[in-house]
């Protein structure tokens, strides 16, 4: 039985084990039909896929393996009035996409967690939190940050609308195997240095296209020491390093996180699952196509200065001179980035003033992220120069937990807004946007031109660093803030 499901005797990487276990059929040209265990669906990339099914008279093959949650378009302002009635959505196009998902999910027999349900949130926060995402599974979603779930040891990646339809109809995808890259991080992270700083460091080292064609496996003592929340953050940004997916071998930390989650296995199933999950490690002697080594002690709290997630410097650093780059195309890109960002070479990053603070997104909106931000903000106020500062929990359950811990009070007392869960200012698709020409310290994952709104200037940082920027009104070194931080 196990042989039939791809248990080979030669040493294999974690990626190869999960891949082999999911091959339904292999074509002569090497393309494989791969089974998909979990499909997350949101409102933006699904309407045409459902329509395609309807036009062709097709059903969803495995509605039980599919979970629909709205997140991208949903405003983060209150969703019900005082009487508990649902409030309408102002933007007609957003309203239409949200209504389409709300109708499509039940019409195709798919479990739907709606805008006003307490479990609603960003798909990539909800999946792990519900125990829908499990180690060793293949997970897809019409969103590139699906890589996030790799933090649990799942092979997870983003797909386009045609592929969404293909998975809905067949529960499979046609894929070619990826190359493997090991990113091994050893040692302890310094005080004030978080999983986000590590993720940014990795992208700085390998480059935004460094992982192209690869799946990255993160290994080493630093990774093992991360919480599941931190692992999800690191894996989430694999796509920013060009890799389609990231992987972290599941261990006791993972199992403790998953145990008791609503959709996680229970009873005897749980025990069987854990003993299988323990085999999901790269075998001694297995080889990666490429290995990158990073010493955790060298990592400082990081910030981005440009419009690519590889444009990273330590907070103690300065804006680089485009001429510092050897590659002429990178020089040109840096010049364009600096013009867009309104920065001059040699400026100290800590002198850069920010008017907007965004704490949220599938990268950094879990409970640990909110605790880290609150630890810095406790007993402090946001700087007068900060015009807009919002904290957007990743899900309704994160929101409840944060409120039970009194974190919402800390944020509100500091002058930050406490919002409803969703993608929010991670992308300029819903009402939460950074105004043109203004700057934000943001815990999201993309600093692309216009990502947070037309003309918005994004500096990617960790939640603690975003909180520090809120207090000082400029990009700041959280290590100099004192207190709990």
């Amino acid at each position, binding site marked *: 039985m196990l042989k*039939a*499901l791809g248990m080979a005797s030669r040493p294999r990487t974690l990626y190869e084990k999960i891949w082999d276990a999911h091959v*339904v059929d292999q074509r002569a040209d090497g393309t494989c*039909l791969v089974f998909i265990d979990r499909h997350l669906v949101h409102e933006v990339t699904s309407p045409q896929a459902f329509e*395609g099914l309807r036009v062709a008279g097709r059903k969803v093959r495995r509605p039980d393996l599919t979970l629909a949650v709205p997140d991208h378009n949903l405003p983060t302002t209150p969703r019900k009035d005082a009487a508990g009635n649902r409030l309408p959505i102002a933007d007609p196009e957003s309203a239409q996409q949200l209504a389409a998902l709300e109708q499509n999910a039940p019409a195709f027999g798919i479990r739907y967690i709606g805008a006003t349900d307490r479990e609603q949130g960003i798909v990539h926060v909800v999946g792990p939190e519900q125990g*829908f995402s499990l180690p060793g599974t293949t997970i897809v979603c019409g969103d590139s940050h699906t890589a996030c779930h790799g933090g649990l040891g799942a092979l997870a990646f983003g797909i386009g609308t045609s592929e969404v339809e293909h998975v809905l109809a067949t529960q499979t995808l*046609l894929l070619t195997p990826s190359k493997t890259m090991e990113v091994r991080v050893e040692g302890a992270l310094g005080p004030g240095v978080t999983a986000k700083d590590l993720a940014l460091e990795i992208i700085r080292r390998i480059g935004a296209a460094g992982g192209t064609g690869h799946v990255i496996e993160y290994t080493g003592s630093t990774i093992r020491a991360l919480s599941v929340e931190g692992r999800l953050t690191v894996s989430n940004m694999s796509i920013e390093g060009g890799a389609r997916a990231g992987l972290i071998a599941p261990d006791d930390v993972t199992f403790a996180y998953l145990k008791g989650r609503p959709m996680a296995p229970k009873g005897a199933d749980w025990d069987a699952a854990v003993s299988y999950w323990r085999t999901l490690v790269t075998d001694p002697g297995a080889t990666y196509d490429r290995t990158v080594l990073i010493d955790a002690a060298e990592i400082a709290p990081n910030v981005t200065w440009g419009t690519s997630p590889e444009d990273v410097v330590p907070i103690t650093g300065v804006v680089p001179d485009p001429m510092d780059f050897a590659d002429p195309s990178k020089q040109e890109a840096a010049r364009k980035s600096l013009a867009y960002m309104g920065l001059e070479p040699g400026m100290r990053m800590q002198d850069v003033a920010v008017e907007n603070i965004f704490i949220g997104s599938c990268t950094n909106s879990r409970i640990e992220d909110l605790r880290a931000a609150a630890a810095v903000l406790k007993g402090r106020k946001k700087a007068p120069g900060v015009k807009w500062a919002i904290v957007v929990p990743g899900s309704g359950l994160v929101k409840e937990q944060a409120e039970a811990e009194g974190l919402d009070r800390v944020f509100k007392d500091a002058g930050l807004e406490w919002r409803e869960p969703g993608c929010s200012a991670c992308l300029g698709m819903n009402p939460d946007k950074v105004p043109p020409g203004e700057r934000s310290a943001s815990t999201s994952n993309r600093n692309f031109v216009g990502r947070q709104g037309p003309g918005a200037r994004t500096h990617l940082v960790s939640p603690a660093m975003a909180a520090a920027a809120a207090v000082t009104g400029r990009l700041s070194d959280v290590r100099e803030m004192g207190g709990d931080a």
Partner: protein
Amino acid sequence: MDPVNHVEGKAYPFGRKNVDTDVIIPAHWLKTISRIGLGRGAFEALRAEPGNLFDDPAYAGSPILIAGDNFGCGSSREHAAWALGDMGIKAVIAPSFSDIFSGNAFKNGILTVVLPQEAIDRLMEVAKTDEIHVDLENQTVTTPFQDRFSFEIDPFRKQCLMGGLDEIGMTMAMDAQISNYEQRAAAAWPWQAGGANA
């Protein structure tokens, strides 16, 4: 997906080179939740010109479009193929196509026929007055005037188009293998079965 074999009828003698997907369907149509109805947005900017080809009653409902080099370049939006399909186009004939566009066209059951520029010039002439016949099985384009042009097509794509099999249809034809995998997986990893219903 409807099988494609013979596409016969009037053809739009368009002929323009480097038509990008923004011309085929402008970006503001991308916010839609449907691929049906996109035909109304097809060639929107060109259609704003009085007397344009696409609103000429002589060509209304033509199933064939004759275009110039590099048709469908630019953004990868699948909406371009959806828009052409929705306006009734079943085959596009051009000297060359962008790879992404021809892939998207194929996925949506639209035949892309590559012919040399001389053949295109001749077909543009014929299309003004007469019908054109694309025969996928024999890989020819013919006219009522004894013109006969042969074209090449990837055998896999030909088979899919003639069988009316889109990629999803092809995979659905492997139902037995998928079911077999599902049974093996259910036995090996029973804890995964519940999914979203657990």
